[in-house]
């Protein structure tokens, strides 16, 4: 009996080992066809030598992103299509990890990068998320040369290049621009209550009183996962401190203990009086749905909300309205997704081709209308974009540009995480002094503010 068992186990072990062996042969097999395909063409059709030449090992491009659904996945696929037309012999390996704003994907990416197994290119938020996490750790290759070779220095705004730069080099190619300081409102509710959309905080509170008296939730918030609150606060900080004061918060020039910050936090705490009680249970799109349904008058959300409103069949200007969030007119709070070039990318040449496409007018105009964002390029084709996106283009071209905190542009990931923890308490206890102390400490811990 025990002998039988022994044989069975041995057999299983052998089986397992051979499976492992098969696994490795399949990987070599995927590499093989490219070589085989290359050789016959050389012999059969001698004149087309050039086409056959580039096949060296597996001719792949491994791109890592967390865009797996909706408009962003469609946009990425559109960009893939353009790439396949240009380089039909490069196989795109889509290393996607699904989930939200990419927190799961980032964990996988970090593990791969630390193990020295980078993808050829990956998606990363512009600004400090890119620089403090990856560039400072010496994991990235600068892409300044791609910008220079393609003449992009002239078509990308200086503010954007600034956010992407560190030590005089540019570190990734921006593919889109989103705006976070947008208020989306229900025009019907405002008209019914004889109100104009509020441009300042004072107007906001006056309108909020009227709306609340009329039985409408003035401000919808869906801060499940807290970042929507952080994003709302960043717009209040911007509205209170102005663009320069706001930018200074992230460089140490503006004092976190200043009276202006106190005012901003008090304004934010007051705003929470007009927010739906169940905000902690909702996601941002459920908050947007409240506005669409007429349960709430407005919500402050990044302009991916525009895609949400159109997807539920509303027309811009009629079913929903949009405007800069209170007191932030004239400033464009930006965040941007960018594609990067890790050091030791296994297919560096292909990655450079991919980045060249991603930054080109053609690539961006394929991607952005579907993603629901605008191109950072000043020469993109306006006719491809809807009414909201065209207005965003105008603002982007004329406004002051500030980096978003909640989406990694303004501060390092460690700082954002600490800030989110402060917000988790602040949204509930509304203790301005404690929140201000926590935010000041987070700045110190991030190594930006002095003790």
């Amino acid at each position, binding site marked *: 009996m025990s002998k039988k068992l022994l044989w069975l186990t041995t057999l299983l072990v052998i089986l397992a080992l051979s499976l492992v062996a098969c696994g490795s042969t399949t990987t070599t097999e995927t590499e093989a066809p490219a070589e085989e395909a290359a050789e016959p063409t050389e012999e059969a059709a001698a004149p087309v030598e050039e086409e056959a030449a580039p096949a060296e090992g597996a001719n792949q491009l491994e791109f890592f992103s967390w865009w797996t659904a909706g408009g962003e996945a469609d946009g990425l696929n559109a960009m893939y299509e353009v790439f396949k037309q240009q380089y039909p012999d490069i196989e795109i390996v889509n290393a996607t990890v699904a989930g939200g704003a990419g927190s799961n994907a980032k964990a996988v990416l970090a593990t791969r990068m630390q193990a020295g197994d980078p993808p050829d290119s990956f998606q990363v938020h512009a600004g400090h998320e890119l620089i403090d996490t*990856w560039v400072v750790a010496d994991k990235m290759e600068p892409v300044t040369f791609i910008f220079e070779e393609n003449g992009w220095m002239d078509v990308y705004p200086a503010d954007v290049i600034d956010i992407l730069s560190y030590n005089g080099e540019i570190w990734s190619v921006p593919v889109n621009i989103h705006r976070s300081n947008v208020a989306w409102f229900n025009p019907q509710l405002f008209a019914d209550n004889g109100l104009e959309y509020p441009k300042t905080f004072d107007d906001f509170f006056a309108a909020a009183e009227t709306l609340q008296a009329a039985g409408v939730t003035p401000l919808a918030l869906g801060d499940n996962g807290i970042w929507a609150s952080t994003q709302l606060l960043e717009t209040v900080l911007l509205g209170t401190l102005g663009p320069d004061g706001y930018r200074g918060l992230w460089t140490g020039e503006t004092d976190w203990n200043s009276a202006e910050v106190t005012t901003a936090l008090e304004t934010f705490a007051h705003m929470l009086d007009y927010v739906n009680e169940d905000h902690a*249970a909702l996601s941002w799109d459920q908050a947007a749905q409240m506005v669409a349904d007429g349960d709430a008058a407005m919500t402050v959300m990044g302009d991916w909300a525009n895609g949400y409103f159109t997807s539920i069949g509303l027309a811009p200007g009629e079913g929903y309205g949009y405007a800069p969030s209170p007191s932030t007119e004239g400033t464009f709070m930006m965040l941007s997704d960018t594609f990067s070039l890790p050091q030791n990318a296994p297919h560096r040449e292909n990655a450079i081709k991919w980045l060249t496409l991603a930054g080109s007018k053609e690539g961006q105009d394929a991607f952005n209308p579907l993603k629901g964002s605008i191109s950072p390029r000043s020469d993109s084709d306006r006719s491809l974009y809807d009414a909201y996106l065209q207005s965003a283009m105008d603002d982007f071209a004329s406004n002051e540009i500030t980096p978003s905190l909640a989406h990694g542009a303004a501060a390092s990931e460690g700082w954002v995480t600490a800030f989110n923890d402060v917000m988790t308490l602040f*949204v509930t206890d509304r203790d301005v002094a404690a929140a201000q102390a926590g935010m000041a400490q987070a700045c110190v811990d991030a190594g930006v503010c002095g003790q």
Partner: protein
Amino acid sequence: MNSNARHERWIAFAMILPSIILLAIFVYGFIGWTGLVSVSKWDGIQPDYTFVGLDNYRQLFSRVAGGIAATRFYTGLWNTFFFTIFFLLLCVGFGLLLAILLDQKVKGEGIFRTIYLFPMAISFVVTGVVWQWIFAPGTESRPRGINALLGQLGLEHLKWGWYTDPTAIGPFHVALIPVFIAAAWQMIGYTMAMYLAGLRAIPDDLREAGRVDGASGIGVYRHIVMPLLRPITFSALIVLGHISLKIFDLIYTMTGKGPAFATDVPGIFMFETTFQGNHYAQGAAISVIMLLMVALVIIPYLIYSFRQEVEL
């Protein structure tokens, strides 16, 4: 010992050698490595093994002005404590009750057993998402989930904010109640199955003997059945206890850290600080503390079961 026995022993050793090696590397090796990281300065993507002593632990345990880490960590520990207590009570209580009911030779026992056991087959992630919808409170004018149901039943006064309610009674956050209800829903079937097996293993003679000696129905349970089920209660507490001490997936998908960390647990703190904040050393310190917590439960159990095996 004859040569045959020695030979067999050698084969036995050879057979378990691969798993010993794998365990040594992938369990104990990484525990050791995590311990090492927890006393290092590693903050950011790039490893930095500079020794800093217990600084990372100190950050978790000492409250400083403006510092959130300790506040969050203490809240998480308290939440784990209460979650564990209530989760175990619900599972053991209802599991036993269901098992006793099923043991009454009811018709269609198989169907009931399957129904009660079924939630266990679902991943905690799915449970979390579904119960998040069920307990989403909605607003006064537009209630959602269970609040909408209560409203329709005319039980308006039972509506409350569920997991969005930041109220705390001492260190106990009421937002935890929906969470341990969801967790217990999933695991009650498991305790029921264990108890049912235990009940079936009790020979009828014993119960009859009890009855002959004049014990009432309840008396039979109190004096004969319950003492015999004690080892099963013990195993169930250990298995469920270690699940609840390191719970992550259910809470992460259902409520996250909750308002003012009302449903935060060390596992979520560890994940966020490590993989979102890139504070690897702090994350490792939290992991080590979680390991110690689970060890406090598991090691006595191992000693106990080891002793029993020796007695056999």
